[in-house]
């Protein structure tokens, strides 16, 4: 691990807890910097910002591990180091390469694999370029509808599943009042409505703004004609009979 001397921030991802402390100490001593420690099953990618680490060491790495995520967690030119990996080196190297790593190589003697994150950062505020892409993947081949699919439930982690803070959803000042929900089918809307109409309604209602005939968009909040359409030319300005009768 001497080749990692000077790397400030490292992440050690472990599987086997036996003598874990010793292995972490070795890494700390070799780099001379900080080492964060995470169990591979409990690793939540969301607890680390992108581009946080100079080095990620992962023991018992497998083909199915999320190398794209590890790539994002590394700083540009950061190093990924696998030891005690599971599976043939060739397959793992290819998976790591496809995930965006460069300089993917095997140390057959030490039985480790090492790779680097490219030196440029994606997602920076440089100008967006819409030039033709240079990736090796130019065409999506489809081999019929019964192809294997990834498990979509695995796409979201705990942070993704968060719901918004209810307080942030309120804008108007009418919170706290009894309010019937959208498609009220429990009768509350009816109750509220009947409460409203049992209040005294005058026969010849007086307008306070003169806009009654214009329709709700122009009426003031005290308009007795709220809820009724705009008046047609020549229509008498009079409350409908049934508004004077209680609904009960």
């Amino acid at each position, binding site marked *: 691990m001497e080749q990692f001397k000077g790397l400030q921030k490292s992440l050690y991802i472990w599987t086997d807890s036996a003598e874990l402390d010793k292995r972490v100490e070795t890494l700390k001593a070799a780099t001379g910097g900080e080492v964060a420690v995470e169990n591979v099953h409990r690793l939540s990618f969301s607890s680390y910002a992108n581009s946080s680490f100079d080095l990620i060491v992962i023991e018992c790495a497998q083909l199915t591990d999320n190398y*794209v995520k590890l790539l994002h967690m590394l700083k540009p030119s950061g190093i990924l180091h696998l030891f005690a990996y599971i599976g043939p080196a060739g397959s793992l190297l290819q998976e790591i390469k*496809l*995930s*965006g790593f460069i300089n993917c190589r095997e140390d057959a003697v030490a039985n480790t694999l090492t790779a680097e994150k490219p030196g440029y950062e*994606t*997602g920076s*505020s*440089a*100008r*967006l370029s*819409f030039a*033709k*892409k240079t*990736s*090796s*993947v130019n*065409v*999506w081949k*489809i*081999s019929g*509808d019964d*192809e*294997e*699919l*990834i498990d*979509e*439930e695995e*796409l*979201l982690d705990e942070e*993704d*599943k968060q*719901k*918004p803070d*209810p307080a942030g*959803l*309120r*804008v*108007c000042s009418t919170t706290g009042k009894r309010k019937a929900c*959208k*498609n*009220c*089918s429990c*009768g509350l*809307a*009816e109750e509220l*409505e009947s409460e*409203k109409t049992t209040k005294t309604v005058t026969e010849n209602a007086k307008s306070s703004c003169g806009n009654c005939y*214009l*329709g*709700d*968009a*122009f009426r003031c909040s005290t308009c007795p004609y*709220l*809820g*009724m*359409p*705009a008046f*047609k030319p020549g229509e008498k300005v009079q409350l*409908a009979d049934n*508004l004077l009768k209680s609904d009960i």
Partner: protein
Amino acid sequence: MRILVLYGSQTGTAQDVAEQIWRESRQWGFQGPVLSLEDYNMQQLIEERLVIFVVATTGDGMEPDNMKQAWRFLLKRSLPSSSLDGLQFACLGLGDSSYPKFNYAAKKLHKRLLNLGAKSICPLGLCDDQHDYGHLGTSLAWIADLWQTLSSTSAVRKQPEQEIVKRWKVRVLEQQPALSEERLHWTQRQEAHVFKLIENTRTTAEDHFQDVRLLRLSSAQTITWQPGDVLEVQPQNSRENVQEFFDLLKEHQLDFDASTVVEVSSAHADLPLPLPYAAPISLQQAARYIWDLSARPRQRLLEVLAQNCEDEMEREKLLEFCSAEGLDDLIAYVNRPRRTLLELLSDFRHAMSKLTLSQLFEMMPLIQTRSFSIASAAASGTLDLLVAVVNYKTIMHTPRLGLCSNWLKGLQAGEELRAAIKPGTMNWPKEPETPLIMIGPGTGIAPFRSIIQERLHQQQLGHDTGPLVVFFGCRNKAKDYHFMEDFKAWQVDQSVEVHVAFSRDQENKVYVQHLIKECGAHLAKLIREQNAYVYVAGSSNNMPKAVREAFIEALDNDALHMEQLIKQRRYQEETWA
């Protein structure tokens, strides 16, 4: 420069937002289509450079129907993880935080695109119907940010000339061709079956506040369905509303009326024409079958209505409602009272008097289909639906009527009906010996009657089937006890273990969750020892939460066990708002 706007929309709202983004993109000099995900060839995504996704989440965490195929494609394991590294995208989600899986469709899409190497130029936008402003609470600012980002990081500039962008071209046909009315009864992509309505009866007592209908359909064609499947129907506007609409046109002496026949075409080479407009139609037909006259108007309708308006006051007001400052007023005027577009058109008299056909077709939202759980097994011989008729009051003078439920209510026995059968979200266990525990208060009982009938039918054929336990709840035994006869029959022959709660028949409220608590040990045994599956269906307010808590309690407060059951699909909720 090319921009592609793709949407996954269930009720047309996400589509409306996508079209708004598309219109605005032209103001910035972009060119490109706005398409539903099912109209776009996903294989081409790898060649795109800039795509905006507007994706709704429907039900609890489900992607909309017109996104299902595209989503399956993107989930293919074989897609290389650097496939989309030439793609820049932004994703806006429409959802409702009263559901546990809030905006899951957009969240998953966003993640998957990143995994495939694409780059997100804006943070994922998550609109919430629970916001006081609905999706506008997030979408307006997100879209503004989008143009801000694009204009500061790429060579696009706001165009000096603001063109009026319309989707369709409308031509009046003087020589009127023969018009097919039948085609308009079903204008969806999926094929429909033809049904005959045998029965349409009110199941609730006359003095009960709500009218709930049992509709029984039969079909001459050989059709079958699985328990849990839903029937998708396309409602029509009521005669009253259609009449009111044409009275309004007549009042303003416009130069078109119910008998005017038009041919609609797309004004853009890459914008597909909706199926309803595929052949010439009369305005009478459009008003009856195609336009949703009782829909709540969206901002686009107000914006288009203002276009030829010569009255300053009305014009200003309409445009104010479309602005960020006027949002509060828009919500108060349209959303809270649930004002219909017909009512809004009646209020803006000067704007209406200058209305053109072109504006009309640009403004009018299309009628959306609605789905109902099928309440009978195919073996029973009829396809049954249990429909609660939506009828409630707001500050508006007249009650609010649900388009589809009232249309169904008005259908006469003997009438023909076109509808499609679609799969539901419930998964039944493969082994018929697995016990089923079903909780379905109110109309939630519908899908369970289907699976119960199917299981009992299997039993009659000599197969072994596991225990069936059902919990039903309503207000009064004498008023809204749906399928009372079925429940009685099951109790009598002991084929199903029945628990019923009548919340208002006694002093204290008794709900299904109370009954669950009472036999918690029994249910826990079924779950632990016999691999029982639990299903909850019905209204999505407090009931699902209370029921879940009752089960956790029955399982010795092991919340983790509940989580596991949910993950294994052994505890499923299908609830609706």
